[in-house]
């Protein structure tokens, strides 16, 4: 069972549940942010996109104080898979579950567009269905999506292999022209050192149906479902 956390101001919460549940046939439930415990059958947690608390302060800065976040942290510490998408990524950075921060886009505008992503790591629980170098087409939509980390931290992230996805062009070339928002090293997705917490600026839940965004998002969400099902079988 997936728990999709619903903060006030979450916007892609239902879309994430629909992608997991309605399209990919894994079970998923919305969990209100005021809960202090995750439902007992939770095997994976997703923090969805949106503008939690309006993001009037720094993005995600308020949501990290929501009661449910302590439970999410315990779940992550125990090795459970936690995915944060867009605002969820920002919340995970604010909560200290992921390194770095998301800054205002380079051109200072909100940007909604389909971008290409090169898979840098192919492993459970988020990219086991991919191969390294594979190019995915998934949309971004954010105003503060420029990934930033101090240079020593960035070096550690790279050395540890925590960069999971980078912005690239249709042919997989990672360069300045294919960087949509000014993210350092074209980073679109980054994990914690252990690899069980992932933050993504792109929205895989908006790329699961042919005709509405395509199906490349299934590579990421499908990997996560495989991992959760594996964990459920192992119990």
């Amino acid at each position, binding site marked *: 069972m997936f728990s999709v956390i619903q903060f006030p101001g979450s916007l892609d919460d239902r*879309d994430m549940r629909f992608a997991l549940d309605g399209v990919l046939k894994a079970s998923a439930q919305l969990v209100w942010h005021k809960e202090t415990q995750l439902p007992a059958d939770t095997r994976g947690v997703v923090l969805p996109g949106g*503008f939690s608390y309006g993001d009037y302060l720094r993005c995600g800065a308020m949501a990290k104080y929501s009661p449910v976040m302590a439970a999410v942290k315990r779940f992550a510490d125990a090795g459970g898979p936690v995915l944060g998408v867009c605002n969820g990524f920002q919340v995970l950075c604010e909560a200290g579950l992921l390194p770095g921060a998301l800054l205002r886009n380079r051109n200072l505008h909100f940007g909604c567009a389909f971008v290409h992503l090169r898979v840098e790591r192919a492993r459970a629980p988020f990219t086991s269905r991919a191969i390294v170098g594979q190019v995915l087409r998934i949309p971004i939509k954010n105003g503060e999506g420029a990934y930033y980390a101090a240079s020593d931290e960035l070096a550690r992230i790279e050395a540890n292999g925590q960069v999971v996805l980078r912005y690239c062009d249709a042919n997989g070339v990672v360069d300045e022209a294919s960087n949509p928002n000014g993210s350092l090293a074209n980073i679109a997705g980054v994990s914690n050192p252990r690899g069980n917490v992932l933050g993504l600026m792109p*929205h895989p839940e908006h790329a699961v149906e042919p005709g509405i965004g395509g199906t490349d998002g299934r590579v990421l969400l499908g990997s996560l479902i495989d991992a959760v099902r594996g964990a459920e079988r192992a119990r």
Partner: protein
Amino acid sequence: MMRRSDPVVDLALAREHGLSDAEYARIVEILGRTPSFPELGIFSVMWSEHCSYKSSKRYLRQLPTRGERVLHGPGENAGAVDIGDGLAAVFKIESHNHPSFIAPKQGAATGVGGILRDVFTMGARPVASLDSLRFGPLEQPLHQYLLAGVVEGIGSYGNAVGVATVGGEAQFHRCYGGNILVNAFNLGIAEIDKIFLARAAGVGNPVIYVGSKTGRDGIHGASLLASAEFDESSEAKLPTVQVGDPFTEKCLIEACLELMASDAVVGIQDMGAAGLTCSSFEMASSSGTGIALDLDAVPQREAGMTPYELLLSESQERMLLVAKAGREDEVAAIFRRWDLEVAVVGRVTDDGRMRIQWHGETVVDIPVDPVARSSPELDRPVRAPADLGERQKLDLASVAPEDDFAGALCALLDSPNLGSKEWIYRQYDQLVQGNTAIRPGGDAALVRVRRPDGTPTRKGLALAVDCNARWCWLDPRAGAIAAVAEAARNVACSGARPLALTNCLNFGSPERPEIMWEFAEATRGIAQAALALDTPVVSGNVSFYNETSGSAIFPTPTVAVVGLLEDWQRHAVAHFPEAGLAVVLLGETREELGGSEWLAQRRGLEAGLPPAVDLAHEKRLHELLAAGVARALIRSAHDVSDGGLAVALAECAIAGPDSTEGRRGVGAAIRLPCTIRPDALLFGESTGRVVATSGDAASLLELAKQLGVRAQRIGETGGARLSIAPLDGEPWLDVELEQLQACWRRAIPRRLGDAG
């Protein structure tokens, strides 16, 4: 009823409130006494042009508002149309012009917030927005600032509230130099048996206030700001602009929809223009009841607010609802869970009066009906503009023929009116809620329909908004007919059947007979076209006083049409999907250059009669497009409009949703029979035409013949160039797509000095 600190109410104060002498006399007659200060405030907003439609209602009555599928027409918060499966499409377009000129970001943002509330008030989840925008020349720093601010405002609100902005239009003309237009459209989906109306029924039922607290913002925003023209002092009106809070709106949407899923609600109304006053009067008036309100119970943002301020504040994100007696706690629990204000502020009464208490005294006691329903109706003088004949005069023989077709095409594509609008729509979340099948950049947007519980259906709704204001200036009736025809044609291009329309009628001051003539003509045109195309008018809004120091905008009756696709997956796109398809031109090209972009941009002339519209042909064209798409004979369909056939072909080749991903486009080689002047053939804007592609042209031509639509095969897609040639001779133009794309994509950003 007179409070010591209130100003003395007399005719002079009434005039300051924008009331006429006759209106003030009528108020005294209704009350049988001098009104109190808050009462004067109530009459002034309720009888303002913005709230009462006093100058327009005699013309609006002629609009066809009924149809087989119409569930609720004008008069409710939004129109509702039956789309089958027990579901309704609920939609409306509304202006926020004046506030957006004074404070572009907040003005546009609250425009989006207001239209969303109109839709979810009906019990519908808002799913898709469109925006129709008009600015002055983009070369002017003021209009660069206004464009950037308005787009940021629409984005900041729509993106943060989780409703996709899926399309729209933006035009630039000096007539909007002192008055920009910001028209916001929203569409929501409701279950038909769960539609809610603004009703205050059931004597003794509680009147409950929910949402944000009331502050001193936006007082007289609607009545003064939107009901008078601008002059040099307009910036002093800044405090009348409201401030939006999309986060609260998002919580309010969820809380209201949660509450409406129960059966505790009797009626609900958003507090928009004139806030608490308008909403309570409308609810009581529509039910023939009265309301007793206690202003002390109203959640207040600041201390010391007077009854006048509390009643007229236009603080955003507030709703008034009537619940069943005894269900108050249930209502309160839902709103508290979302951290929203909730307070019982009154009761429904049976005496048809609005009685308002404050600090234990009665500050307002007036009969509901004369204020709400029997508001004044004016028959303003009407006179055709003296220079109309001059405007319409065009001697084509004296217009130098085009001698550089490729240069003309590039110049047109490089203009902000015809160039790519990606700079704008990239700033909007086009995807949230996961239903967007055709994103901005095509003719119509297409959204898949879900049930309110999130279950997807096979149905899709196509949405488009249009208006050629230059045509409306040259001939308001013909221009309005063309606006309806174009919006419907855009929807039909996706394969959808046009269902109904909503309109936003933007005009100058109704106090000038020439403007009222434009209004009368335009509404006649909309009525005529809506009737012929079977697209009833289910909602709308009138925005007068779009003029500054006596200079009015072109009449701009913006029309948004909603169409239904039975199977959303079976649709046509606007751009050429691949090489090797036949290009088929549907409809007839006549020698019509009057009012065209080519004439305006290349010859500096805005004159002549706009192209004729054959409504019977348009109707047949709808049939052909629906059948052609359903039978997969049509792969793509793009309406020929501003810039004519050459621009339409270029757009088919270079546009498309993926143009931002380095898509190089799909070229075409076109050959056209030529019996008129070549510039009219390439750049004339004859209506009723569509550029379609097909993998089976013979069957498409046969189908067109059966349905009585003129159709001709004019070429084939493929290659990286667009060439357009006569049947026997050298091409008029033969251009690399890359060159066209460079002009088209940079048209707006290069004028803003923006790399993005």
